[in-house]
């Protein structure tokens, strides 16, 4: 092996619940797997931890897998390109190199769906999970008034984290109507460990059928205007955490040529994608919470290491959590009114300062990009492209190298001796 090329039998992308479960299955089989994640710490979104925030108990055995040889863990490592089948171009803070694999399990998770509304780019406005991440990263919230809004059970988790960090949660607004949220809560007993969520959903201050129509402030957030039952009122606050659920991260899968379906990576038996030797598990195949992600990760890990019977034995558990995922999706379906919140001058693309009106006149994403520069900034359209998909129904473009912003030097690696044979 030289500096430019590294090999492994099994590469697992993502160290969230799905990736860690796949890694555990691989470790049991003694397979030399590599787990790669662009975050500096393992745990993915739900088990994100940091100073003062230890990882939750159920996460610990899975996290400890990462320290078990022959498994290798590459934190803070980004995937830049898939230059040829079986090879990824990657970089960390120091260097770029080629990583060859025989089998690949994609556990890329999901990201938040941010939709534009007046004031959404003001300092003090973040995503719902993003606020959690900031807190776990050490951001103090003591004494701050926080509004949590948007959609999905993540609102509750985020509000709990904010309270834990000393904030006062002055409002929790769920866009889904009360009837749907109630039906969701009444069904939760069917899944182990979810009953507590039902209690939280019934908590005072949690208001379904309500959403933030505008964030107010000049240089930073000062208040929000909230619509409930057709009436709008103003609520003073220091922070707003707002997101409308999650969308699967499919860029890498799509670059590898894996088929997508309804915005998620399409998988069949054993979590196989349409590409030979490539599996996908967890929220990149559909949003459904960490329990579903864990089952799928384990199934993928077992299948990739040839333990098909053990994988098949998990079918019942898998189906149960898939039913939960369906329930989740149906209950928190987006109200079409949410897509109408932006005013013509509301920014859609905050990297390039492009308004919703500028983009709306175009016939598709590629055209809008070309003429308005929206999506051309450093976030590579991750935010505005996803929003445009929700607002205008435009499909995403084909991902190209660099998959994420990467050093020019890394893109030069492919030519420097790291190619072909090694």
């Amino acid at each position, binding site marked *: 092996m030289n500096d430019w090329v590294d090999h492994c039998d099994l590469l697992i992308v993502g160290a969230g619940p799905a990736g860690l479960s796949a890694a555990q299955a691989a470790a049991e089989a003694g397979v030399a797997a590599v787990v790669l994640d662009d975050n500096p710490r393992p745990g993915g979104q739900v088990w994100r931890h940091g100073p003062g925030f230890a990882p939750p108990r159920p996460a610990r055995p899975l996290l400890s897998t990462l320290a078990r040889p022959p498994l290798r863990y590459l934190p803070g490592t980004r995937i830049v390109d898939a230059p040829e089948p079986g090879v990824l171009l990657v970089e960390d803070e120091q260097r770029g190199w080629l990583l060859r694999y025989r089998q690949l399990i994609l556990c890329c998770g999901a990201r938040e769906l941010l939709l534009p509304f007046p004031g959404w780019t003001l300092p003090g406005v973040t995503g719902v999970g993003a606020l959690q991440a900031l807190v776990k990263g050490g951001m103090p919230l003591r004494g701050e008034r926080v509004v949590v809004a948007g959609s999905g059970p993540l609102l509750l988790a985020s509000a709990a984290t904010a309270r834990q960090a000393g904030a006062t949660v002055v409002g929790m607004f769920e866009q889904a109507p009360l009837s749907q949220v109630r039906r969701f809560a009444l069904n939760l007993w069917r899944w182990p460990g979810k009953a507590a969520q039902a209690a939280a959903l019934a908590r005072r201050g949690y208001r379904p059928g309500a959403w933030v129509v505008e964030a107010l402030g000049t240089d930073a957030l000062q208040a929000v205007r909230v619509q409930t039952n057709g009436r709008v009122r103003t609520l003073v606050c220091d922070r707003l955490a707002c997101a409308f659920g999650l969308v699967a991260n499919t860029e890498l899968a799509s670059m590898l040529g894996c088929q997508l379906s309804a915005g998620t990576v399409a998988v069949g038996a054993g979590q196989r994608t349409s590409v030979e030797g490539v599996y996908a598990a967890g929220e990149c195949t559909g949003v459904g919470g960490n329990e579903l992600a864990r089952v799928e990760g384990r199934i993928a890990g077992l299948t990739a290491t040839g333990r098909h019977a053990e994988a098949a034995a998990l079918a019942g558990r898998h189906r149960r959590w898939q039913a939960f995922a369906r329930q989740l999706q149906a209950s928190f379906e987006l109200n079409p009114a949410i897509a109408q919140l932006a005013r013509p001058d509301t920014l859609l693309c905050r990297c390039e300062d492009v308004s919703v009106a500028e983009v709306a006149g175009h016939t598709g994403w590629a055209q809008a990009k070309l003429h308005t520069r929206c999506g051309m900034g*450093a976030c590579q359209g991750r935010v505005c492209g996803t929003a445009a998909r929700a607002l205008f129904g435009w499909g995403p473009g084909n991902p190209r190298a660099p998959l994420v912003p990467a050093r020019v030097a890394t893109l030069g690696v492919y030519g420097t001796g790291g190619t072909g044979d090694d």
Partner: protein
Amino acid sequence: MTTQAIVIGAGIVGAACAAALAQRGAKVLVLDDGRGGATGAGMGHLVAMDDNPAELALTHYSLGLWQGLRAQLPERCAYRGCGTLWLAADEQEMALAMGKQALLAEQGVASEALGTQRLAQLEPMLRAGLAGALKVPGDAIVYAPAAAAWLLQQAAGVTLRPATVQAVQGRQVTLQGGERLAADIVVLANGFGAKALLPALALRPKKGHLLITDRYPGRVSHQLVELGYAASAHHSEGTSVAFNVQARPTGQLLVGSSRQFDTLETRVEPAVLARMLARAVAYLPALAGLNAIRAWTGFRAATPDGLPMLGEHPEQPGLWLALGHEGLGVTTAPGSAQLLCALMFGNAPLIDARPYAPGRFAEGQAA
């Protein structure tokens, strides 16, 4: 009576032709199906090129026309008169620079030779020890997709219709779906897309890669091109790369360029990209540590001699060609459009039109 014209293609060349026709009072229907072409992929460097007298005549003429438009161009067209620095790595290349200066001067294009130190002062990000550069202050940059859209919007009497052209025959145009249109003048300006309509045309695709960085304002201020660029641009086989970097008004660095023949595969090719970047890093060492955010490819429509085809189709009266602009179509679009209109309306063009006559590639020679 008003002239009725159809222009096929709303890239920079079609847009310039439509605007020029409208200026002469014609009613213009522009047809484009939005598939896109070189205009959306290119670099938008407006540059005086001197590989042969005809190329210099057309680029110089066009640069003057761009300068005339400059005051009207809205900010989204991102026109900047940044000038070009043609970089000389050593004394031998510096001699080439001096030769270039003499050629440009013959056509009235001003330029200035810079020594090692002056170059280092102007562009400190460049590697130390370059012999010098030739500065061409009249060169500029523009964001071509916005300029093309603006040219169509500002012209009176121009209608843009989304439609796919399936066939052309003289003054007749057939759209996908079978609808037929006719006009006094039909201009074929759909870039490499013309090859599908008139397969005998001497056009080949020349693929190019480009890459853009995140914003790093103030690092580079001119368009930087190695003097060896022209040599790379004229290879007719194989893959070549040359150093060519543009400072976007956003502070991003747009990095080129590569040339490959006879592929229509749109994929970014890692090996070609890597070669191109290695070349760029050789000139701008600190570029290695900057973040790239996007890479893409585009296709230049190339003729055998590198000059565009401007004029009436030799066998199809009423069908006018504005094709084959290779790697210079953004620069040459306004000049091409004026020249073509002069020929259409029987006026004397301001530059000699013969080097661009479509009939110059006799049948069979269209290799």
